[in-house]
């Protein structure tokens, strides 16, 4: 044996030991996949018995036939479709796809590879393994994912194969290949046909939608910036899990900067009059780009003491399928829900619905006073067993409806790893149900658990549609934060469809950029459109947004638009332009049970404060923003560095009652070490 070979083998033995130590000491144990594999295998068996011998014989003809139906149903490999297309008429193919879809509809949960997406793709998962060559049906193909997002036409009619193929081609040409970063965010995609429907249920792997950073915009071309608030914090907890638990940097698309910033409490004072929230604007120097100014908009929702919470009708919808059988999932879920149950009282009632087991309703609506009864019901939950398909979500909403409290809190809390099976319901129709129920007053909150197949994209989408919030629970501390300390914010919505619009004064500001909120951007005209959905704010929640601005006269490196030929040159005008106001902040919101919005306005004058004189909260939030940009590898990170983030965060920690800011410092250190 030659020398390098021995060396290589020694390295591999070392690697094996490292892995074993990671398992024995670090708890990186293999997941139990048996339920999923056996459920999928059972489907193979069912198909083969129904098809009888021809399939078992695997005649060339039948193999082709199945390969074709698999390819058609899965939409995984557009090229494969094109090749086979020549051999069968499109009409026949659609029949085959429909037939296999019907056969599979009742079959149990398969967490197939993430390349299968659409409603039709899901049933096809069972047929896929018969495809020849097998890799066609099963392997990941980022292009296929793109194609699958455009799986139905605007009028909801199923696409023909030809249409699908050309869309897949189109998508590939438009977006190129993004391995593992499949879709554009819904809010930014305006073509109805191309709007992503999230990923279909039952797909594997952690999934994040692609985020495209908002660029600088020139005030003279775009004086208005409009977006929806977002109080979610899931991204921070998820980033923390990557850095502290898994010891690796998170994928850029898992980093939503606004959720990082909003994870922290800021000491904004609450409203004093009868509006649901107060606004706090501050402007100071920008730490990563000295010639720029940073504008912070802070909202603080009215606090509601736990004892003062309105009457609540809660339905816990809990995922107890096999995939939840892992220490960071079901046991943590039970613990978190017990912590929540401890907070409830005579004004609350709780029902528990599970999906993935034979009986859906574990606990009928029960008064919060009967705490032990609720806790016992939670204790009895066990993960596993085959999935009984799922009327889970429908049942949960039905029970919420039956116990509806007029003027109170009516909310379904969905706890899942997102390996989400709601029977024949696709993500699209799930969104519709959730949206419709939100209109009738039943809101949805989503709590995400575990790693491995966290469907971040879908959970965020449905919580938005459901007027709810989305939190990721990575440990007991986070459960404590979301379900105990911030129970008011989690359960009680004090204003809905909260939109922010800023009008910049061109006499003061040359260009601006909103940091984060990429998937919350709205068109200027959406601001006054009460039909446009936007984010909710819960009791006591704080929301923070940062704008990086370039002062008038500052250098702006933006591609210039050609001078317009037919339009009158718009000059800064109005009697306000000459004022020293930097901008005007406009807010629109609706009371939770109302359909028309109210408007608040606040002008801002720049006091020319340097960064060092900004409030500690301002400084801390800017450190978090800078950290987010570093993790995302942003082109706007400027002179920002982990070291600078650490210095600012350390000095701006403030009272830090719960130690969240100290933990942030730890996380930054960890990221710095990993980035080296």
């Amino acid at each position, binding site marked *: 044996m030659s020398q390098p*070979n021995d060396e*290589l*083998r020694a390295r*591999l*033995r*070392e*690697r*094996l*030991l*490292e*892995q*074993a*130590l*990671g*398992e*024995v*000491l*670090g*708890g*990186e*144990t*293999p*997941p*139990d*996949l*048996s339920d*999923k*594999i*056996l459920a*999928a*295998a*059972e489907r*193979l*068996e069912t198909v083969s*018995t129904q098809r009888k011998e021809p399939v078992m014989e695997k005649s060339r003809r039948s193999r082709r036939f199945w390969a074709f139906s698999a390819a058609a149903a899965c939409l995984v490999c557009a090229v494969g479709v094109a090749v086979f297309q020549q051999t069968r008429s499109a009409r026949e193919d659609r029949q085959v796809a429909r037939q296999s879809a019907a056969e599979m509809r009742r079959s149990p949960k398969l*967490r*197939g*590879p993430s390349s299968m997406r659409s409603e039709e793709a899901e049933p096809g998962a069972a047929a896929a*393994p018969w495809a020849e060559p*097998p*890799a066609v049906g*099963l*392997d*990941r*193909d*980022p292009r296929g994912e793109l194609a699958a997002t455009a799986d139905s036409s605007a009028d909801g009619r199923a696409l023909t194969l030809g249409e699908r193929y050309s869309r897949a081609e189109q998508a590939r040409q438009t977006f190129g*290949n993004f*391995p*593992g970063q499949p879709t554009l965010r819904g809010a930014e995609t305006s073509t109805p046909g191309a709007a992503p429907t999230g990923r279909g249920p039952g797909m*594997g*792997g*952690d999934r994040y939608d692609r985020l495209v950073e908002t660029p600088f915009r020139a005030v003279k071309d775009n004086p208005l910036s409009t977006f929806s608030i977002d109080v979610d914090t899931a991204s921070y907890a998820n980033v923390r899990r990557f850095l502290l*638990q*898994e*010891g690796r940097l998170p994928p850029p698309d898992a980093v939503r900067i606004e959720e990082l910033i909003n994870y922290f409490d800021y000491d904004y004072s609450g409203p004093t009059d009868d509006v649901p929230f107060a606004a706090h604007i501050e402007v100071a120097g920008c730490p990563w780009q000295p010639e720029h100014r940073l504008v912070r908009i802070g909202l603080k929702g009215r606090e509601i003491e736990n004892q003062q919470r309105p009457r609540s009708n809660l339905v816990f919808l809990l995922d107890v399928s096999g995939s939840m059988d892992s220490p960071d999932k079901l046991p943590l879920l039970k613990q978190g829900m017990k912590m929540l149950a401890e907070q409830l009282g005579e004004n609350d009632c709780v029902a528990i619905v599970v999906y993935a087991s034979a009986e859906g309703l574990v606990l009928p609506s029960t008064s919060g006073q009967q705490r032990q009864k609720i806790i016992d019901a939670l204790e009895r939950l066990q993960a596993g067993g085959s999935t009984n398909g799922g009327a889970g979500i429908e049942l949960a909403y039905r029970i919420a409806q039956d116990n509806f409290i007029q003027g109170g809190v009516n909310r379904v809390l969905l706890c899942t790893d997102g390996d989400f099976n709601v029977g024949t319901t696709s993500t699209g129709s799930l969104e519709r149900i959730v949206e419709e129920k939100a209109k009738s007053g039943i809101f949805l909150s989503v709590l995400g658990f575990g*790693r*491995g*197949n966290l469907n971040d994209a879908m959970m965020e989408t449905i919580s938005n549609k459901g007027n709810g919030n989305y939190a990721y629970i990575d440990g007991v501390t986070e459960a404590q934060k979301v379900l105990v300390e911030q129970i008011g914010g989690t359960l009680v919505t004090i204003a809905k469809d909260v939109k922010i619009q800023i009008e910049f004064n061109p006499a003061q500001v040359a260009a601006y950029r909103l940091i984060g909120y990429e998937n919350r951007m709205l068109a200027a005209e959406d601001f006054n459109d009460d039909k446009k959905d936007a984010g909710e704010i819960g009791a006591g929640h704080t929301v923070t947004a940062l704008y990086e601005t370039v002062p008038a006269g500052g250098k702006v490196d933006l591609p210039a638009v050609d001078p317009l030929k037919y339009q009158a040159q718009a000059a800064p005008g109005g009697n306000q332009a000459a004022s020293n106001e930097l901008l005007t902040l406009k807010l629109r919101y609706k009371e939770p049970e109302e359909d028309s919005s109210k408007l608040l306005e606040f002008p801002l004058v720049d006091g020319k404060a340097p960064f060092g004189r900004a409030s500690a909260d301002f400084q801390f939030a800017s450190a978090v923003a800078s950290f987010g940009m570093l993790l995302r590898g942003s082109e706007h990170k400027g002179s920002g560095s982990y070291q600078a983030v650490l210095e600012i965060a350390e000095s701006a920690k403030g009272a830090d009652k719960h130690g969240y800011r100290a933990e942030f410092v730890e996380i930054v250190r*960890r990221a710095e*070490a990993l980035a080296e």
Partner: protein
Amino acid sequence: MKAAMADRQADLAGLVRAHQAGVWRYLRFLGCRPDEADDLAQETFLAVIRDGFEQRSAAETASYLRAVARNRLLMARRKQRSSPPLVDLEAAEAVWARVAGADGLGDYLVALEECLQAAVNPRVRRALELQYRQRLGRAEIAAELEMAAEGVKTLLRRARSALRDCVERKLGR
């Protein structure tokens, strides 16, 4: 007919239970991310089940599953552009077959736990725990144990070497 199907179900369940952890660990050993290992392990079993399998000795079955897993991994990687690097597959297979054995690292882990008690002193065990359980960096471990960072590096290297010798001696591999 029904009985035959039930038998087959039981066989499948046995196969999956006996080998799933090993296949998953093997995929991780080859350089898969955890989520990727989840997916590929499932695909591996489905491919084997689809093509029909017969129970052979545990070692033969494990070796066959590893070959299928390797192919699945290669096929998946061919489609992706940026993925974590893989190890030299041939050499990795040789080392795995010799050291990890037919039970997918099971014996190895048991031996390692014994060695952690027997072959290293409490201070070294503490250093290993800080590294693998708490995931601290070298500097943090040094601070925790009140020693120089360079010393931690040597300490950990020696500890791993002692553990490797101990485990492989115990297993006779």
